[in-house]
């Protein structure tokens, strides 16, 4: 049954029928289409149902701490930009515990593609509200309706002129695959937030979302920050999917440092010789 170099035999812990499977397929397909070899790819995640992702495809991975995928990914990218570094994370992982890293990743523009499974809740810990849960929704925590308003992280990314911002839908695998291909291909930071219905703890089934999701048409100017912001601020019965925004060209993270070594991994850098160190120490004499 092995159909792709990215398939593996690890038992999947997701609920049968979960929309996470769609994202997994889209991402594997995207990597295949891009012709990446498994050893050229590194998937980084935190903790959560979404964050179990890297176990289910055949490639390098770092499944780190809850909330801390982004700094790990940045470290990997800095050490070896030749790797295609992807982050796969959840709304809790990336926007809750990890919110500060998200903000500051926007400042740095690393060549990383971040895929956020947005199920509007904390699934692995059994259904609590997350930073994207709508006001009034019911979760296992709080006991009453949710009172805090949700974060608009796509909006924040757009305000900060992110390299690429898109919204995908786990129920439309081919479309999502296209977005992931774009997100990986552009140089710079890409954020793909994926509407990912949770059939165990969520409010609505997949079908509900299918009704409200619509594809962004060609009229949308994805170089227009205001237009992109408008798209991510629509009422909740209009869920635009597709490329929202494409940032202005700007330097990639570590570009200056790497001007001579280009994409070579840091572990290949030459050691400092004893005589060089002796010379440096002599300047203290």
């Amino acid at each position, binding site marked *: 049954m092995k159909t792709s170099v990215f398939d593996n035999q*690890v038992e999947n*812990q997701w609920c049968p029928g979960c929309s996470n499977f769609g994202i997994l397929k889209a991402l594997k397909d995207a990597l295949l289409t891009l012709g990446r*070899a*498994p*050893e*050229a790819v*590194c998937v*980084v995640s935190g*903790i959560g149902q979404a964050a*179990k992702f*890297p*176990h289910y495809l*055949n*490639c*390098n*991975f*770092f*499944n*780190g*701490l809850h909330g*801390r995928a*982004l*700094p*790990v*990914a*940045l*470290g*990997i*990218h*800095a*050490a*070896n930009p*030749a*790797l295609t570094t992807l982050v796969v994370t959840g709304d809790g992982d990336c926007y809750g515990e990890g919110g*500060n*890293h998200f*903000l*500051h990743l926007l400042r740095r523009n690393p060549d990383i593609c971040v895929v956020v499974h947005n199920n509007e809740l904390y699934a692995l810990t059994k259904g609590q509200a997350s930073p994207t849960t709508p006001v009034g929704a019911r979760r296992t925590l709080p006991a009453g309706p949710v009172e805090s308003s949700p974060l608009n992280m796509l909006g924040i990314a757009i305000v900060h002129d992110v390299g690429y911002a898109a919204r995908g839908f786990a129920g439309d695998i081919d479309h999502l695959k296209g977005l992931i291909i774009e997100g990986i291909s552009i140089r710079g930071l890409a954020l793909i937030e994926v509407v990912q219905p949770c059939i165990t703890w969520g409010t609505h089934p997949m079908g509900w979302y299918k009704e409200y999701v619509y594809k962004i048409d060609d009229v949308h100017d994805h170089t227009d920050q205001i237009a992109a912001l408008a798209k991510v601020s629509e009422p909740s019965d209009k869920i635009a999917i597709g490329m929202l925004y494409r940032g202005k060209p700007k330097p990639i993270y*570590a570009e200056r*440092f790497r001007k001579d070594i280009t994409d070579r*991994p*840091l*572990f290949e*850098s030459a*050691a*400092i010789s*004893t005589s060089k*160190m*002796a010379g*440096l*120490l002599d300047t*203290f*004499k």
Partner: protein
Amino acid sequence: MDIGIIIAGSAGEGVQTIGALLAAVIQAQGYSVFTWQEFESRIRGGQNSFRLRISEVPKNSPKDWADIFVSMNSGAAAKYLPLLNETGVWVSETPEGGRENITIPFKKIAEENFKKVIYANTIATGAVCGILGIAVNGLCRVIEKTFSNKNKTVVQTNIQAAEKGYISALDACKDQCVWQLPQRADRYYLIPGHEAVSLAAAYAGCRFISAYPMSPSTGIITYLSQKEDDLGVFVEQAEDEIAAINMAIGAGYAGARAMTATSGGGFSLMAEGVSLAGMTETPVVIILAQRPGPATGLPTRTAQGDLLFAINAGHGEFPKLVIAPADPEDAFQKTVRGFNLAEKYQIPVIIISDQFLADAHFSYKEFEFNEIPPELHTPNLDDIDHYKRYRLTPDGVSPRLFPGQSAHLVTADSDEHDEYGHITEDLGGMADQMFMKRLVKMERLKAEINPPEQRGVASAEIVLVGWGTTRGAILESILLLAGENKKVGMIHFTELWPLPDFSFPSGKKYVSVENNATGQLEWLLRAEYGVSMSGHIRKWDGLPITATYIRERVVTYEDERV
């Protein structure tokens, strides 16, 4: 020769500039100079001091008393004058009552002669050189070197300023000033603690540092950033300490030797990351530069208050190495060793320093920097057939490859995992074996740990037991006490966790020496070796322990005993 100097004044009054210039001049004259600093946590104002100690052979430990005292304002005079020896010379910027002093209004002279108050620093330095009996051209040569990247006029004006200060001092000093520091042929290295750590890191193959500014650790990332061209270390100022350690772990996983540096509060935030490094078996080196806590505490002061926290940091049970170098030379060697052991055992390594070591400069005739090139522990790709990142091996160490280095896939998992790095809940089986595999590494590591340094223990009645940066003060106190016919020895720990097999010779009185209030080493040694101290010498006021402080307490202790 053993001359102590205190330069004291408010932040912004050039105390540090004068001190550093003076140290350079003394070094250039061929003498050993040891300097340390203590200052308040503010950008302007307060009262700070820069301390120098001049000798013919290195005396690298802080002195309580000074022979020469320069005060930049009345507040400084009031605060530090009590530290001046009875026979000492006091140079004061402002006219002061009380004790006899030489008033040299540096700022006024600077403004009147050179139109800029900034020249006061050089004038003051010139004055101290005059008092010390250093020939003025020695000072001028150092000025030329120091300002070599400035334009000619700046150099010239500084030289004039130095001469001005020099002459004012000579005029005023008369026969009060008894010192002469003629040029010697010797030449000492003058090495600051955290620059030694930084250089050592680069030498050990460190290629990545991510850190968030926090006194007294900030010097490390700053220095590495400044030396990017020479050292080639990639520098990232993280958004917080959690990011810092996670970035370093990411870089380490991807094959770059990596480090971070912080102080207690930031280290608290890193505790989870320490645990992550333990679980994922990713080497990472963490510099923990101590300052007094709890919480924000005294941000620019020194302490040894985080030993037990460092040893126990991070939830769960996993191997780690904790070392606490004694001085810059030791710090260089231990930093290299730390990086090597981090990689050999694939563990987090915590190197404990403190504000005292961070900001102090030590003199060395030779600087032994450990000429072993960085040890690599990368497996031979040819030996690997079917790769498993977490292969169970007898010594617990699995072959560590880097992602992208070969066709082998490299994984890392913070969950309990199997040999491939995939989540396991096989409780009695794989989960258990992985847990034990990691702990086995600790046993092996323990066998590599050096025993504590012992000095004169065999013949000693009292043995001072210390750790980390108190070594210099302890050794000097032993000399002082020997002069009073007290047989005192030392057992000094710089490798603190895991502790090696060691037994404390019986029949000695052990007295611990620590820069903290609760006796953390004492507690540790009781748990590990069952040894009990007969007494302890502690200090937790934010200033380093000195030889005279120790000596006094040993004497009192001895007296009480009689």
